[in-house]
């Protein structure tokens, strides 16, 4: 019996075969990039450039503002065309820098980051490494985009003993992390070593879902070959949401993160595989985060894994995957995976640091039925990995009963309840609304 989390969960059809084991293809720089200043959780970065400024690959475009924020770098070389509000993949209109790209110059300037520096990790202090992570603008690349340097700074009273590397990739369709582990196992492990050194922890465990046996085997081999002490791979059951932070901690370590608390509470820091890779590039190549691996899949002619620069439009990403199979039958384009991702309404939105996938759904995959009444079957309660009662939260949200909604803060919106509901109740949407009801209630009381 493989390791898994303690309650709930579902197993949607994976569809990973569409893009798995397809080599990562680097795309040539697009003609124009739109780089948003809020690619991370927390306060948006402050724009540092003006219109007509010349920028080079890796130049700073935005400065971090406040405690929880991250810097933003230029993914290309070119000339700043505009600084204005543009719709981002999150659907909000946010400040963005539009750059007219010089393709040859970009490829030329890329070379500065291609050569790995010979570096002795042991000779570097944790503070130096943390600074390198911070200036590279690394954020959690699993999708939550929490600034990594903040996550690597646990409060003094909460000792951390384990670093968990999240390679579960439990969302259907997505294969970006899987492919990254297969192509760059050493780099991922080196990145994890950087985190290990910063946190000063002995134990590093890599959690990988059992549907990626080749990645599990390869990483085990590389750990032995590189003689990394304290490293181990933990195969976990293929079950959504295995890659949820709290779920993975339970599955691998059997520790339960208390309600409303962070993993620090149980002495764990969880980082994504792709984030570890970014840390490797930042430390060994001096390369800031300006590109990432994105799975473009679903109803496209040639699904695959692509290395895309931030600010590349979805239109271009989909074109790279051969375009829509039949544009007339496309029903939705999703930013992220189909369970937690968000359907976008404009193909001009661009790739961000948290874009793990672009999933195109056709009429055949897309299922919509009007919301029916709750039939009290209790399936949403059975599948909720957080042990909540989604149906009751939904009703409380509908009637704005803030007192009944206190549990809703534990909901991570994984979508298991909406997925399983036989009457197609929009449970996650209601609970999301419920969270705003709670916030408004607290504000009115204050």
């Amino acid at each position, binding site marked *: 019996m493989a390791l898994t989390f303690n309650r709930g969960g579902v197993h949607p059809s994976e569809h990973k075969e569409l893009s798995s084991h397809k080599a990562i293809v680097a795309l040539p720089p697009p003609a124009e990039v739109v780089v948003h200043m809020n690619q991370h959780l927390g306060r948006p970065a402050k724009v540092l450039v003006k219109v007509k400024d010349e920028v080079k690959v890796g130049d700073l475009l935005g400065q971090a503002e406040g405690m929880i924020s991250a810097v933003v770098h230029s993914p290309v070389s070119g000339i700043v065309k505009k600084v*204005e*509000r543009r*719709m981002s993949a*999150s*659907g*909000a*209109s946010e400040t963005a820098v539009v750059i007219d790209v010089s393709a040859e110059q970009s490829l030329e300037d890329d070379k500065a980051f291609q050569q790995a520096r010979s570096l002795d990790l042991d000779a570097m202090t944790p503070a130096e490494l943390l600074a390198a992570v911070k200036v590279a603008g690394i954020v959690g690349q699993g999708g939550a985009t929490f600034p990594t340097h903040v996550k690597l700074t646990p409060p003094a009273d909460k000792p951390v003993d384990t670093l968990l590397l999240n390679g579960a990739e439990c969302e259907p369709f997505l294969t970006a992390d899987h492919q990254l582990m297969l192509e760059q196992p050493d780099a991922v492990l080196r990145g994890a070593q950087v985190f290990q050194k910063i946190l000063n922890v002995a134990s590093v465990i890599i959690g990988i879902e059992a549907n990626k046996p080749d990645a599990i085997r390869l990483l085990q081999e590389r750990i032995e070959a590189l003689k990394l002490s304290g490293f181990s791979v933990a195969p976990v059951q293929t079950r959504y949401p295995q890659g949820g932070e709290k779920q993975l901690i339970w599955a691998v370590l059997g520790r339960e993160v208390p309600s409303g608390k962070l993993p620090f509470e149980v002495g764990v820091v969880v980082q994504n595989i792709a984030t570890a890779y970014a840390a490797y590039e930042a430390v060994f190549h001096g390369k800031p985060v300006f590109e990432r691996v994105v799975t473009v899949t679903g109803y496209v002619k040639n699904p695959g894994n692509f290395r895309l620069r931030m600010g590349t439009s979805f239109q271009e990403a989909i074109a790279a995957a051969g375009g829509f199979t039949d544009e007339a039958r496309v029903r939705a384009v999703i930013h992220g995976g189909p369970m937690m991702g*968000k*359907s*976008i*309404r*404009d193909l001009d939105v661009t790739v961000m640091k948290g874009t793990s996938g672009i999933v195109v759904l056709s009429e055949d995959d897309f299922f*919509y039925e009007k*919301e029916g009444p709750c039939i009290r079957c209790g399936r949403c309660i059975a599948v909720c990995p957080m042990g909540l009662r989604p149906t009751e939260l939904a009703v409380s949200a509908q009637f704005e009963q803030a007192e009944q909604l206190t549990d809703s803060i534990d909901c991570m919106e994984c979508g298991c309840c909406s997925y399983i509901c036989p009457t197609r109740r*929009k449970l996650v*949407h*209601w609970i*999301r*609304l419920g*969270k*705003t009801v709670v916030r408004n209630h607290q504000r009115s009381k204050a």
Partner: protein
Amino acid sequence: MDVMLIVKTVLSMGGVALVAGVVLYLAAKKFAVFEDPLIGEVEALLPGVNCGGCGQAGCHAFAEKLVETKDLKHYCPVGGSATAGEIAATLGLEATFTHKVVARVYCNGGTNAVKAGEYLGIESCAAMAVNNSSDLVCTYGCLGLADCVKACPFDAIHMENGVALVDDEKCTACSKCIVACPRALIEMAPYATKIYVACKSPDPGAVVRKYCSVGCIGCKACVKACEFDAVSCEGALAIVKPAECTECMKCIVACKPTTIRLSRIAEGKEASAHGAHV
């Protein structure tokens, strides 16, 4: 025999009633709570809808507050200045004149605004605004799912052409719609000034033009047309200042995207100015 039974019954029940009556009388005297008769008088003057627009729990609570504080800053927006005057007379205070205000929706997008994609979520503006999941391209405009209409206790706000519109005559300024609007598009405006700029988008004109045919593009034609300095333009959004506005209708005629409009049409010149757009 039967007569005695009746007499006994009447006497015993009457006795119980007498004793209970005396006890109740004494208890009422002992535990009496004094309530200012003014509270009842003031409450009688109020509309009695218990809408909460004044900020109190209902009309009785509002009347208590007024009598307790004797301060006319506590104002019933539903009753308006007429009620305020009567209350002032009852409380023996001098009535301060208060302008009537009404709610106003600063958007005329609706069917004029561009939609992208298809919204399949819960039928409510609040739900649509969560996580920016609306199908409206404009990130400032009316979402059109009528949360304000559902919130209005006076049937004073309705959806017209996909956008909320306030009926100035029915509106009592209770503020319920203002609270309900997740995009904060509804504000209080003086009833007397009918002219307003029905847009809240600060985006530059070129951007607005792409998603709405009636959005303010910041062309400043209204500013130039106004002879009374009543229209200003902050960034790319015009604002009509009610205090200076004389309702000469020149800005309405000058406004090419027909963003500036009237909340209600009363007279000939207003009707013709409005007609200039058609």
